[in-house]
Structure formats: structure tokens, C-alpha cells
């Protein structure tokens, strides 16, 4: 989906405002937003791809006028309602109106191990990779109406395979509950001139990770 979250190359957002290293949260609610987002995923009713899809699918104007933890919370509310875990009436009321259903709940004692383990995205697949390091490829010019991880600025562009990462879960499918459908994942390197034209910084290269179905020979 060509959403407003796909920001590469957009202009008009002003300067970047650096921050000191210890300034990670700016309000207490941001701490809770982070923790809630992580903990509420524990029942396993959505994937990380579904949560990214929910965030980028917020109304475009709302996306651009919300801070990032606010985007997380607004998307989390949508995921919870869509999963049937919370009713929109409960969100409106600001309190629980009926008991929850049995679900896998993250215990405090599990937290260190869960965070320290993470969740790998690579999966075994049978077919060998179609492309090799150093090979010329061209990204497809696709405009799917669902979630994708091929940015608009890098579509229909010629690049070179820089790394092969194994086969990874395909977000385009997994975000919509259509299965993991793992595909070979490549780092593809583009020149700035290929992406942005002849006036681009001649010393610029940009790399993206591209799934095999994003690429043509």
C-alpha cells in the first residue's frame, strides 16, 4: 500500500532535531505505550507485519500529526478491536465492559528471556536463491493495495545484489493472515543517481532489503 508512512524522498518536514542519548522517553505515557504494545502482542493474535500494517494504515493526516508512540497506541487499539480482544465500545468508555477471553499472557518473570530471545524471521525453504551476490537486478514496479516493504522510491530501479540473507517471512502475505510464505531476502544496492536522477549526490548509495518476488533479473 502506498501509504504516507512510506517517507523516503518526501520533502518539507524540516530539519532533523538531534536528542541526547538518555532522552528516550518524553513522557510517562510513552513508557507505558512501549510496554503495552509489546505485552499485548502476547496472546499472539497478530504478527509484527500486521502491526506495521496497522500503523501505516492510520488516516494519513493523523499519521503525520502523531508522535511515534501515539501511532503505536492508535494502531494497537485497532489490532485489539480487530482481534476481538477489546470492543470499540470499551475503548470509547475507557474501561472494560465485559470479561476477557482466555489468552496467553506475558508474565513478568518471562520478560527478560522473551526480549533476549526475540523472534527470528528466517525460515527453511527448498528452492535455492534465484539471485547471487553481485548480480544485476531490477525491482518491480508494483503498487499493491496491501502491506509491502518495497518503498516507492526503490520501485522499478536497477541495482546489484549485495547480500543474501536466507529465506525470510514475507510481510506482504503475513501482514494479512495469509501465511508466512518465506522468500529469499537480498540486500540490493542502488546508486543515488539511479534512484534520484542525475543531480543526486554522486557519492550516494542506498541499500534496501528486498524479497525475491520484489525483484526481476
Amino acid at each position, binding site marked *: 500500500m502506498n501509504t504516507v*508512512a512510506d*517517507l*523516503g*524522498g518526501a*520533502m518539507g*518536514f524540516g*530539519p*532533523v*532535531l*538531534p536528542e541526547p542519548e538518555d532522552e*528516550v522517553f518524553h*513522557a510517562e*505515557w510513552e*513508557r*507505558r*505505550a*512501549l*510496554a*503495552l504494545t509489546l*505485552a*499485548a502482542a502476547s496472546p499472539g493474535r497478530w504478527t509484527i507485519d500486521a502491526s506495521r500494517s496497522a*500503523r*501505516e494504515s492510520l488516516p494519513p493526516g493523523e499519521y503525520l500529526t502523531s*508522535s*511515534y508512540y501515539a501511532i503505536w*497506541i492508535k494502531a494497537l487499539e485497532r489490532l485489539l478491536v480487530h482481534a476481538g*480482544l*477489546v470492543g470499540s465500545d470499551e475503548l470509547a468508555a475507557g474501561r*472494560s465492559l465485559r*470479561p*476477557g477471553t482466555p*489468552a496467553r*499472557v*506475558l*508474565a*513478568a518473570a518471562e520478560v*527478560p528471556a522473551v*526480549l*533476549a*530471545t*526475540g523472534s*527470528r*524471521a528466517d525460515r527453511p525453504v527448498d528452492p535455492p536463491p534465484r539471485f547471487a551476490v553481485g548480480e544485476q537486478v531490477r525491482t518491480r514496479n508494483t503498487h499493491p493495495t496491501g502491506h509491502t*516493504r*518495497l*518503498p516507492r*522510491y526503490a520501485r522499478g530501479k536497477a541495482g546489484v545484489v549485495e547480500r543474501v*540473507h536466507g529465506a*525470510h517471512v514475507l*510481510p506482504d502475505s503475513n501482514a494479512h493472515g495469509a501465511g508466512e510464505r518465506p522468500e529469499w*531476502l537480498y*540486500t540490493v*544496492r542502488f546508486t543515488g543517481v539511479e534512484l*534520484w536522477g542525475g543531480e543526486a*549526490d554522486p*557519492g550516494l548509495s*542506498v*541499500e*534496501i*532489503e528486498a524479497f525475491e518476488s520484489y525483484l526481476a533479473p
Partner: protein
Amino acid sequence: MGNEPEMALRVEALEAILVEKGYVEPDALDAIIATYERDVGPRNGAHVVARSWTDPAYRERLLADATAAIAELGYGGRQGEHMVAVENSADEHHVVVCTLCSCYPWPVLGLPPTWYKSPAYRSRVVIDPRGVLADFGVTLPDTTRITVHDSTAEVRYLVVPRRPAGTTGWSEERLAAIVSRDSMIGTGLVTV
């Protein structure tokens, strides 16, 4: 952005709903926050970088398989399952971004700063990285090429900054102390 007064109440209400319905354990929330405020932050990455500067064999392992080399020092997990380390040089400078959302190597850098998730950074660093570096007070020679890594899948990048001159003989600990978070994203340089 900072002035989102309604968000505090909204998050509080959501937490209350999830706790009441039994989907979230309040102690687990505290444990998550404590992890990222206390244990997991850019000092982890600085440790990795300092080790790479002082141990040539480690440096090789880091550049060959960053996930494994980082795990050697005890770091890993969520948002760092598939790590790649890229090393700056006089010829090539690396910068990391996620233009699509906020992908960031948590186990080595902790949670991303606000600017990393901002439209200003995400939109501009892939087309005008030198302009973004200027916002950080960083100027590179024109002869230094810039490679921007847009984290569009689950691979996460750690930039190994250049070791500054005048640090010969420094201990790993002393070196780690000068490695800034921004230098490991590529928006800063390490200086003494």
C-alpha cells in the same frame, strides 16, 4: 507532537482495559520498561564497537556474522535477530534508517530516539544524507562515499564508526565510553 495531552489518558485507559480483561500483567509492563531503561541501550553497542576496535579477530567475526559476534558479548534478541555490522572508513560512511517505520537494532542500541522515527529523518536521509548529517553538525569530505541502509525487512544494522586518532593504547572500557549512539547509527562521528 510533544503536546499530545490526550495520549496520557488514552494510554492509561487502554492499560486499565487490558489489565481488567486479563490480557496484560502490570508487572510485565514494569519489567519491559526496566529492561530498556536499565539493561538494553547504546552502551551495549559501544561495547561491541570497542571490542571490534581492539580485537582484530573479533572485528572479523563481527563483519562476517554480526548476530553471532554480538551474542558473544551477551547481547541479542528482539529487533536484533538478524544483525549486520558495517564499518566506516575514510572512503565510505554508513548511515542507517527505516524509511517505512522505525526498525532499529534494539539489543545493541536500545530504543530509537524520536528523531530516528521522525518523518524529517526518514524522508530525507535517503536522498540528502549530507544535509541530514549537517543537522547533526557532521561534515564529511566529498571524497567519502555515503551508503544509506534502509531497514526494510528484519535485518538490523550496526555502524562501526571510525576509531579516532589519539586513542592508541586505550582500554576497551575507555574506548566504549566515547562511542556515541549516533555514531553507531551513522549520524555522528566518534571524537576524543
